[in-house]
């Protein structure tokens, strides 16, 4: 057993109102630079919808993630080592900028600089790639709130099954929820495995997957290999960039920017201990629908004395172990099992998990004339109304509707129990028992999901360094120059001095 720790995230989708605050603050922090205008390290998609970049979940087309070959071995879907090197000169599976969108700016100067005249001056959009006026025809969130869904949403790769033919994008019959996405910081990252230069790596201390900007040579294989399309090419520097899980903040014991600024307070950050020796085996699980359990099997119980001993053996400090025991992520993922990974069938063992939304089912209950607050109605809907369930199963359980139904029933029972106890009605514990919760556990889970405070949602131990002050200092500059500006300027980023000054021996 080789115990490693990872700072992981869970998002409670029922609480996401699609305000995009996470995306905007992330962009302001990390990607408001020339070359990554089109890149959103964090984006929020409306589901059903084609996503960003368009149809990124269609792995037949984009060849992301891993698959099992005929002999059951785990291989990258984009091909083996030789094939990858042969496609260095032109990568056939790289999305083009049109698959994201053409980034624009506006003629703001025209608003104040236009000569006096009878018409109000307008700020016209201008492509930042060509500098010419352009029409805005797509964006990172073009389908917000199902906008244009009758036209586009049928292109959602998750709507490929037989059942999907019945999905109607008529206003009265549809369902929607928002899906915030960032890099999954996978246990078995396909991007790292596909990097010809060895520039991408997973940090042993906290599991964050990063691109070494000094080693990246711009071969762009990571973009293809990532099934979530969360590695981006900076077209100005020719290097790969991605979500850093705000490592300078994490190292200082602070939550990521997207978590910190989340208006709905739906994000949770905490440690998960995992057995690095079992990652490969779990990712190669034969049946896609067993991948969820296989991944949970890689996670280790921090309260287990044997695990703690092994963790100390591999150098995990005591306060990290303590943080792992208080981890809200461990509770949601392993103890209550209400959180699910996004597309486990990609076999990357993603580490950003989601509590699936109950709202599509509740909407369906109301639509069918039922009572949302009656758990029997909701239970009936969960078992009978296949469409939202099938859809959620495509996203979170490789199509296993029983697992999604189990989680939704748990949430329904919890909802009904807390409703009756809050209203002073007689609590009916039979519903709780049916989903395997005691009243005490229900209270605990309710606290975690509904009222958890900042310190309960974000349990991030500071990095173990004696010079922790330097870690959080915003002193040095990132070597990410913007090109194309007449005067190349350096951009201030929160990169600690230590990373550049003392990394003489790159391990």
């Amino acid at each position, binding site marked *: 057993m080789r115990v490693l720790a990872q700072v992981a995230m869970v998002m409670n989708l029922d609480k996401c109102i699609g305000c995009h605050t996470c995306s905007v603050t992330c962009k302001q922090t990390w990607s408001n630079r020339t070359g990554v205008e089109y890149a959103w390290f964090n984006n929020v998609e409306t589901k059903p919808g084609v996503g960003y970049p368009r149809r990124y979940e269609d792995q037949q087309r984009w060849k992301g993630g891993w698959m099992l070959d005929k002999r059951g071995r785990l291989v990258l879907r984009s091909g083996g*080592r030789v094939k*990858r*090197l042969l496609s*260095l*000169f*032109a*990568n*056939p599976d*790289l*999305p*083009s*900028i049109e698959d994201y969108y053409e980034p624009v700016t506006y003629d703001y100067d025209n608003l104040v600089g236009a000569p006096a005249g009878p018409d109000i001056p307008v700020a016209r959009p201008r492509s930042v*790639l*060509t*500098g*010419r006026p352009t029409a805005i025809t797509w964006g990172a969130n073009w389908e917000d709130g199902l906008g244009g869904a009758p036209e586009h949403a049928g292109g959602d790769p998750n709507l490929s099954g037989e059942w999907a033919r019945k999905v109607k994008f008529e206003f009265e019959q549809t369902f929607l929820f928002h899906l915030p996405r960032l890099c999954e910081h996978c246990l*078995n990252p396909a991007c*790292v495995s596909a*990097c*010809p*230069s*060895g520039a*991408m*790596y*997973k*940090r*042993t*201390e*906290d599991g964050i997957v990063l691109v070494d*900007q*000094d080693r*990246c*040579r*711009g*071969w*762009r294989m990571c973009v293809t290999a990532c099934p979530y399309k969360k590695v981006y*090419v900076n*077209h100005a*520097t*020719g*290097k790969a960039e991605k979500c850093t899980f705000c490592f300078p903040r994490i190292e200082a014991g602070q939550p990521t920017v997207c978590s910190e600024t989340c208006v709905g307070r739906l994000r949770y950050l905490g440690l998960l201990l995992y057995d690095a020796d079992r*990652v490969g085996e779990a990712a190669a699980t034969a049946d896609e629908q067993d991948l969820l359990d296989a991944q949970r099997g890689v996670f280790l119980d921090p309260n287990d004395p044997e695990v*703690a*001993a092994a963790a*100390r*053996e*591999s*150098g995990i*400090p*005591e306060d990290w172990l303590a943080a792992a025991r208080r981890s809200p992520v461990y509770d949601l993922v392993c103890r209550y099992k209400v959180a699910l990974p996004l597309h486990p069938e990609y076999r990357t063992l993603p580490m950003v998990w989601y509590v699936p939304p109950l709202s599509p089912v509740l909407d369906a209950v109301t639509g069918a004339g039922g009572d949302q607050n009656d758990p029997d109605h909701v239970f009936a809907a969960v078992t009978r109304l296949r469409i939202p369930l099938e859809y959620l199963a495509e996203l979170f359980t490789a199509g296993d509707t029983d697992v999604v139904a189990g989680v939704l029933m748990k949430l329904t029972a919890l909802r009904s129990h807390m409703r009756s106890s809050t209203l002073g009605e007689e609590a009916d514990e039979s519903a709780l028992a049916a989903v395997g919760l005691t009243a005490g556990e229900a209270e605990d889970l309710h606290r975690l999901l509904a009222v958890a405070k900042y310190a309960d949602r974000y349990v991030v131990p500071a*990095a*173990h*360094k*004696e*010079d922790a002050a330097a870690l959080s200092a915003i002193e040095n500059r990132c070597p990410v120059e913007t*090109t194309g500006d007449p005067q190349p300027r350096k951009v201030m980023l929160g990169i600690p001095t*230590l990373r550049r000054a*003392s990394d003489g*021996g*790159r391990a």
Partner: protein
Amino acid sequence: MNAPLTLSATATASSTDLLLWTAFPYICLAVFVVGHVWRYRQDQFGWTSRTSQLLEHRWLRWGSPLFHLGAFAVIAGHVVGLAVPATWTEAAGISEHAYHTAAVALGSVAGVAMVTGLGMLCARRLLARRIRLTTDRSDKLLFPLLSLTVLLGFSATAVHNVFGGGYDYRETVSVWFRGVFTLHPQPEAISGAPLLFQLHALSACLLFAAWPFTRLVHVWSAPVGYLVRPYLVYRRRAGTPPVPKPAVGAGSSSGSRRAA
């Protein structure tokens, strides 16, 4: 084997020949070496192929593989033609005629592929506005210089060896080339070569001098190590001790770790 030529020609090498075929190549090689050392130490961040596939992929899809694969073959041909003396191939039983027939045949295919590919890459750089705007100063030097070198070499072969009577560069240009690297420069060996060969050699020298300051440095990063390295890469955070200290007495050692 080249002694008589060396003796007779050293006396006749003019100062222009010395400048063009001895001083200039050595200056270019020095810039090549020192430039690479400097760039590698100073500019790891800029050391990249500068991919632009994201912005334009239709021309690149054909142009880039044609150019690169053609270039590999052309470089291999140059290695054989310049570095291997004619006497060696003759000793191996390959006649002069057979050698040149094969060289012209294989070289033509490789050359056409490389010229076509480079033409497409240049065309996309000029015609696709997005790509033109990302073209920086080093590209504005590299693309014309590379095109010039390739076209001069291509036309030298075409004029003299494909359509012309045949010119045996292995007795002149190759001798000069090997002389440069064996530190026995023989400027007179190339001074009588046809103009196209001479110009090709000079522009190639310039290309080598420009090499470290352009995107050509990505050639040295060809990721062959990828074939043998493990898929997953773990790294420790910069600044942390490379090996975790063995925790003997669990509780106490973790306390000391903090102070260590």
